[in-house]
């Protein structure tokens, strides 16, 4: 499954996304950028060059931000695992929420004209058009890309899964169900925002969190609250956000963290409401 997704992703590169997004109208831009953000493979340490390259192609700031935030919001490994554990309907809703949040985030940036919160030197950089690499052509390359991607994900993931299962087992064995019901149950209206805030300093690979989430669900924590916690852990990763500090002013970074906290809280409440009878 991971292999199949990696194979599909081999058709996409940030260079292509840039070429396809340049010159599009804003609304088409948000939708396409969110879609590309989901399917384009890139390492978070490329965020700064990517950011500058998009802007220098004349892509609006909001559309660029949509691309950058949708990517961590819809982690492909998390998507696959959610599908396998909790069903494909739930997976679809999860992807949809990432895309919608990414588009709203970009829209807000453009509406409020937040260009002032980008470091001014960025606007002066003239960048040559990045070449489409020859090595990326052909089926043999795609097959190899997919294989090495699947292998490296697998290698990375099992450690997290083990930790996740360990933490899950500890919660299962040592924390009584009543504690969760009292603190994170459906009757506590503040459970969702608290779950989001608790998740900010925690960072885990999406895969490690899913065994923990399953235990929380057994303990009677509502789906939306769990999801809010997962999203916050996976998508708000301070070290990765801090990479962007080179091109974004502190206000912009604070704005984005605040946006995600509010957005995740809303999504948590919404899912608690939608799935109040269970998944």
């Amino acid at each position, binding site marked *: 499954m991971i292999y199949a997704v990696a194979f599909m992703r081999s058709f996409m*590169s*940030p*260079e292509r996304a*840039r070429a396809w997004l340049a010159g599009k109208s804003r609304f088409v831009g948000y939708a396409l950028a969110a879609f590309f953000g989901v399917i384009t*493979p*890139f*390492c978070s*340490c*490329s965020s*700064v*060059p*990517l950011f*500058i*390259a998009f802007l*220098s192609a004349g892509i609006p700031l909001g559309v660029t931000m949509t691309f950058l935030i949708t990517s961590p919001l819809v982690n492909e490994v998390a998507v696959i695992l959610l599908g396998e554990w909790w069903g494909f309907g739930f997976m679809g809703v999860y992807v949809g929420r990432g895309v919608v949040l990414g588009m709203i985030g970009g829209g807000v940036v453009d509406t409020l004209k937040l260009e002032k919160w980008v470091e001014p*030197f960025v606007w002066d*950089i003239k*960048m*040559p*058009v*990045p*070449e489409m*690499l020859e*090595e990326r052509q052909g089926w043999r390359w795609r097959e*190899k890309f997919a294989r*090495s991607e699947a292998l490296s994900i697998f290698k990375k993931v099992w450690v997290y899964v083990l930790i996740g299962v360990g933490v899950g087992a500890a919660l299962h064995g040592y924390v009584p169900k009543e504690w969760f019901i009292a603190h994170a149950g459906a009757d506590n209206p503040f459970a969702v925002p608290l779950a989001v805030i608790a998740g900010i300093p925690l960072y885990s690979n999406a895969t490690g969190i899913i065994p923990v989430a399953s235990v929380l669900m057994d303990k009677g924590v509502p789906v939306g609250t769990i999801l809010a916690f997962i999203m916050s852990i996976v998508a708000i990763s301070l070290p990765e956000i801090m*990479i962007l500090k*080179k*091109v974004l002013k502190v206000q912009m970074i604070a704005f984005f963290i605040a946006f995600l906290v509010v957005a995740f809280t809303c999504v948590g409440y919404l899912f608690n409401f939608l799935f109040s009878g269970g998944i």
Partner: protein
Amino acid sequence: MEITVFGRGCATCNNTIQRIEAEAKSLGVPVDVSKVSDDVEIIKAGVMTTPAVMIGGKIVHAGGIPSAEAVRGWLK
């Protein structure tokens, strides 16, 4: 052979450099690998995904660790 690796110094970039040096050693090709880690320099070279590899003024690879096979191809 002069090789430039672009990247801000995350694990993937360092692995790329190590792989190039290891392959060069096993092939017996002398290489001089230099590293560009400044984001603005990276962008000005026309690179938007790192790690990227430039040989003889041409970008031959971008975004991810190159395969050992690809590295051997460049060194020949």
